[in-house]
Each structure stands twice: as structure tokens, then as C-alpha cells.
């Protein structure tokens, strides 16, 4: 148990250290501040969650109940909003990956000097107001899409690009892309095989990260959906809060937990892969 070992180690170090040793004292001081920062951060993030959970688990009289959670699926429009959000998330992830993965790999391989420009360009969606993005997408979208909810996916793709690009960029920087591609091709592999069998498997964590970030973004985005008059999950939550505040908060809480679970799942996947390597090592 790491948590149990670290404090005792600190205690041993502290007890072994002569009093008045300036350097050791500063380390202890630094660790004390680390603890304070950790606690403050935890309070900052966990307190609102606790408040939301507490609110969702209470009725109007302050009694503990799970009624808000059990009532979710029966609420008018909830399943439709959830279904729409999931569909939009799937389409957004697909379009984002199809656009960003080949582009990022191509730039890394052929025009690495353009990566600086790419970094700057992909930051633009974060700085541009949503209303500008909406108008831009509307102006350039084919007519048949303007009346489709999938219009939102195109807008979400713009929003998701910075996150997806950064995940992939980090993944590509972690491997020797050029050498792997050349090794694969010298062995007779064509571009598709090289991508499918060599590059993408080594970008698995980066791809999963890009997809989960895109998913989290779609499940949490309110402004664009609201302005485009589509009832996605976040819009439904806001609308529902006016009539059933407890259910609305319960859904918000579950939405957050769902995203967390996905992120934990990603971490677990990496750990499992690491264990697999270790098992092979021990076996041989």
C-alpha cells in the first residue's frame, strides 16, 4: 500500500534528521504545503459533488431517498435526449478521428516543421465564441444538414479537434513514427497495413483518450445545442431543473460519474497492458 508506506517513510526520514537541518526542514515544509494544496483541491472538486449527490438523494422534506435516480428513466424526454447525445457523440468521434488521425500522422511524417502552426491553428476553436462557430458551420454546411441534428456533430467536431489533436500529437511524439513506418514499408507493408497493424495499435491510448475527451465534450456541451434548439442531455438537464430539480441534479451527477468511469476504464486498460508485459517477462 503506497499510501501507508509514504507517511512512515517520511516519519523515518524526519526522525533520522538532526534538528535544525535547514535543507530537510524545507523539504518537510514543502510536503506540508503539498498536503494543503491536495486537500484544498479535493474540497474544491468534491464538495460540489457531495452537495449535488446529497441534494439528489433528498426529497423536499429532507428525507434520504433514491426516488430522483429511479425516476430518471420515466422523465419526459430524458431517453430521447440521452439517445440524441449518444448518437451525436458517436458521429462526432467518428468524424473527428477520420479527420484528425490521418492528418496528424501525415503532418508528423511529411511536414514536421508545420507542427508549430498546427498547434496554433488547433487552438482557435477554444478561443472563438460558440456563436461564431455556429454561424461559420451554418454558412458552410450543405442545406440538407441544416435541419438535421447532426449539424451539431459538425460543430462538436470543431470543438473536439484541439483535444483530439493534442492527444494524438502526444501519442505520436512518444513513438519513433518515421522509423516504424519505414521499417514496416521495407518489410513489404503498404500504407493501409502500416497504419492498421503498426501505427494505430501503438496509438491505442492516445486514440482512446481522444475519443473519451470528445465524448465528455459532447455529453457536457450546452451552448451550441441550446442555440440550435436541439434537446441534448445537457439541454434536457437545464430544462428539467425547472420542474424536477432533484432528478435534474441526479442526471448531472450520473453523467459526471459515467465520464469518470470511462476515464478510469482507460487507465485500467493501460495498467492491464503493463501487467501483460510483466507476466510475459516473468514467464520467459
Amino acid at each position, binding site marked *: 500500500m503506497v499510501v501507508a508506506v509514504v507517511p512512515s517513510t517520511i516519519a523515518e526520514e524526519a526522525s533520522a534528521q538532526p534538528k535544525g537541518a535547514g535543507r530537510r526542514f524545507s523539504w518537510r515544509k514543502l510536503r506540508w504545503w503539498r498536503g494543503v494544496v491536495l486537500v484544498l483541491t479535493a474540497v474544491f472538486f468534491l464538495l460540489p459533488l457531495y452537495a449535488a449527490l446529497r441534494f439528489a438523494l433528498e426529497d423536499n422534506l429532507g428525507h434520504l431517498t433514491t426516488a430522483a435516480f429511479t425516476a430518471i428513466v420515466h422523465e419526459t424526454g430524458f431517453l430521447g435526449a440521452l439517445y440524441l447525445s449518444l448518437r451525436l457523440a458517436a458521429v462526432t468521434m467518428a468524424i473527428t478521428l477520420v479527420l484528425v488521425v490521418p492528418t496528424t500522422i501525415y503532418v508528423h511524417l511529411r511536414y514536421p516543421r508545420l507542427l508549430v502552426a498546427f498547434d496554433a491553428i488547433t487552438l482557435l476553436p477554444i478561443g472563438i465564441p460558440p456563436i461564431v462557430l455556429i454561424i461559420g458551420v451554418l454558412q458552410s454546411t450543405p442545406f440538407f444538414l441544416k435541419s438535421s441534428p447532426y449539424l451539431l456533430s459538425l460543430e462538436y467536431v470543431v470543438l473536439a479537434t484541439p483535444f483530439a489533436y493534442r492527444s494524438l500529437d502526444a501519442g505520436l511524439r512518444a513513438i*519513433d513514427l518515421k522509423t516504424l513506418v519505414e*521499417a514496416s514499408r521495407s518489410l513489404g507493408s503498404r500504407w493501409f*497495413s502500416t497504419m492498421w497493424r503498426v501505427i494505430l495499435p501503438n496509438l491505442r491510448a492516445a486514440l482512446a483518450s481522444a475519443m473519451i475527451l470528445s465524448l465528455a465534450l459532447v455529453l457536457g456541451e450546452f451552448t451550441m445545442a441550446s442555440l440550435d434548439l436541439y434537446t441534448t442531455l445537457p439541454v434536457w438537464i437545464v430544462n428539467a431543473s425547472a420542474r424536477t430539480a432533484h432528478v435534474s441534479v441526479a442526471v448531472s451527477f450520473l453523467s459526471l460519474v459515467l465520464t469518470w468511469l470511462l476515464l478510469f476504464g482507460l487507465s485500467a486498460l493501460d495498467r492491464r497492458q503493463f501487467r501483460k508485459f510483466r507476466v510475459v517477462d516473468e514467464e520467459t
Partner: protein
Amino acid sequence: MEAMAIGNETGVHAAVSGTRGQDGGPSEGATVQLVDLHRHFGHTRALDGLTLAIRPGELISLLGPSGCGKTTALRVLAGFEAPDSGQVIVDGNDVGHVPPQSRDMGMVFQSYSLFPNMNALDNVGFGLRMRGVKTKERRRRASDLLEMVGLSKEAKKYAHQLSGGQQQRVALARALAIEPRVLLLDEPLSALDAKVRIQLREQIRGLQTRLQTTTVFVTHDQEEALSISDRVCVMRSGRIEQVDVPSVLYANPATAFVAEFVGTMNRIPGKVTASGVSVLGREVGIRGERRGTSGQAVEVLVRPEELAVGAVGRGAGVVIGKTFYGAVTRVAVLLDGDSAVQVDVSTADAAAIDPGSAVELTVIAREVMLAEPRSSGGTAAGGATGSAPGTPTPGFVPGEPFPADRNGVDDDLSK
């Protein structure tokens, strides 16, 4: 300690018998011709009219300082770089427009290039998989190849679980698995420590000799090149200075650049005379194109074994160090000024030569080459380059900077 077992001849042939003919025996390697290759990167000429013919089954090394174009030449041959002009001909066919995956050339890279998502067995079998070889046969042949490079016990390990030497051996097995027409080795040993490097190069040479695969080996390490090559191609500024067998390169360098780049070489001040050059009080002949004019002050290139220590206790030289190399001891002598030279003396005679004592040096060669002006070349700027007798590696020269351009990593212009 890495196991360096090399499979016996039968095992080697069995491992690569898939497409080499039904008899399982080794076939002749391919003939390769590089014809008048030019390649520019911006204003830099990486290849400047490179023309080279490589014989079937030959191991030829491209040797030269950083930026001389050797890696670019290899990449052009592999198909990863397109030349601005010129031809790449393999077995009589111009492969200039053939993509890398269709050239049938196995390549081992300087950096570890194993696919991280595959274990050693799958890495070796990857090329076979791309050729549609069925799983069972693929695994059998990959296992044979891993056994051939002494790594059968590491078949299930991933790249990060293997040492650098093991990774390069897997990469070698992977390149050989496809039974390439030409094997390309791009400084495959440069990231390894000295001991593993020597072991692996011997293994490469052993396998290449048995398989008779035409092999091009790029290196900046002259010891590597001279020790395993049938012929060595010394390159400079995108051009070939000389192509020959190692012994000829050493004994009869075509140019002053080759003379200084290959083996240990002293630069000793001299003066051109009507019939040759006067150096260390003796007149000797001049060979090579560089001649000079009578009375011109020059620097003369003399190998350590072409110098002799005359009288001890008098003379203009001062012994500043001795290095024992078995039968031969290399004595460092400081001449007038700051010119330090190295002289090979039999160890028995060297016993009488102590550091600090004055000695007289004599040139015993009949002919010498005149050095290029120091500012023009990429070779060492010291009084001597090289090291141990018989192992002409760059070495320490007292009072002189180490010749970094001969030991630095090749600045691949195309990267």
C-alpha cells in the same frame, strides 16, 4: 552477457529457404548499381554524382564523415528518398519508381525499430505476414530465424523487454526473414556498447557470408567498416573518394582524404624539393595527385609504422607517452613546435624509450602523400589520427582536439 550463438549452416539455410529456391540453398545476391545519383536538400548537396556498382553477395560499407551522404545513398537505394537525378538498378532493372514495399530490400535501422505492439516472434514474422505466408509456416520460420540470431528464448518478449543488442538482432532476423534481394544496414551498431557492437558485427558478417545476401552497410566507424566489409566505399561531400578492399584502402589510399580518414595517420611538416619532399631530414618520393611546388612548405602524411625511432637520447623529438599494444608499442613524440606524431615500435625496443627522453625520428617509407590544407577537409586537424596498430580507429592525439567529425553520429541530411 548476451548469447551470440550463430546457427549452423543447415539451420541458417532452413530459416530462409522459403522463397530462395526449393533446394533450400543460398542463392546469389542481387547486383546493385547506383548511377550518377544526385540529391539536394536545399542548398546542400547530399549526393553529387554518386556512381557505385555492388557485386552479388558482396558486403560493401559506405564510410565517411557526418553529412557525406552515405545515409542518403542508402535511403535512395531503399526507396525512402527519390534522387533528383540518376538511376538505381537492381539485377539490371531500374527500380527508381518502385515503392519501398516492393523493392524486396530488408533494412535494419540505427534506432531501434521493432514494432512495440508485437513480440519478437511477431516482429520477425511481420514481413512474411505481408507476403501472405500462413500462420503456422510463418511462426516456424520466424522461430528458426530467432534461433539463428540466438534469441529463441526471447520470442515472446516485447521490444521494451529486450536489450539494445537483442533488439537489433531481432531487427536483423526480421530483415532477413523476407529473404531480401539486398540487405541494408543503416548504422545498426552505433547505439550499442562496444562489446555488443563487436559481437553483433561478427554475427552480421557470419550470416551475410553464409546467406550471400548483397549487403550495404552504412557506418561512420572505420574499424567497423574495415573489419567486416568485402569492400569499403569512402565518401565525402556526396561523392566517392575511393572504393576498394580494406587492405588497399589502408596501404594505397587514392587521396589524402582517404589516407587520413582510414587508419592512423601523422601530419609532419616538410618541404617540397625538386625530386620529392624533405621530411624529418630525409628526402622521399611523393605519390598521389597533390605535388606542390619546389620549396613549398607542406604537411606530409606518414603512418606510424612508416616512422622509425633512431637514436635515443638525442634528436628533436620528445617522447610524451607510450601505449602498449602487445607486440607493438605506440610511442607519442612531440616534434618541434606543437606537432605530435605517433610511431609504432616493437615492444622490445620500446622498453628503452622512456617518456621525456629525446629521440630522433626517421621516415622509412619510400613515398608519402601530401596532406590537404587543414581548412579544406573534414578530417582531423591534429598531428595524428587513429589509434591502435591493426585497429585503425580514431584515437587520442596529445595536445590536439579529438577528431569529432569521425566519431559523431552521422547527420543524416534527409532527416
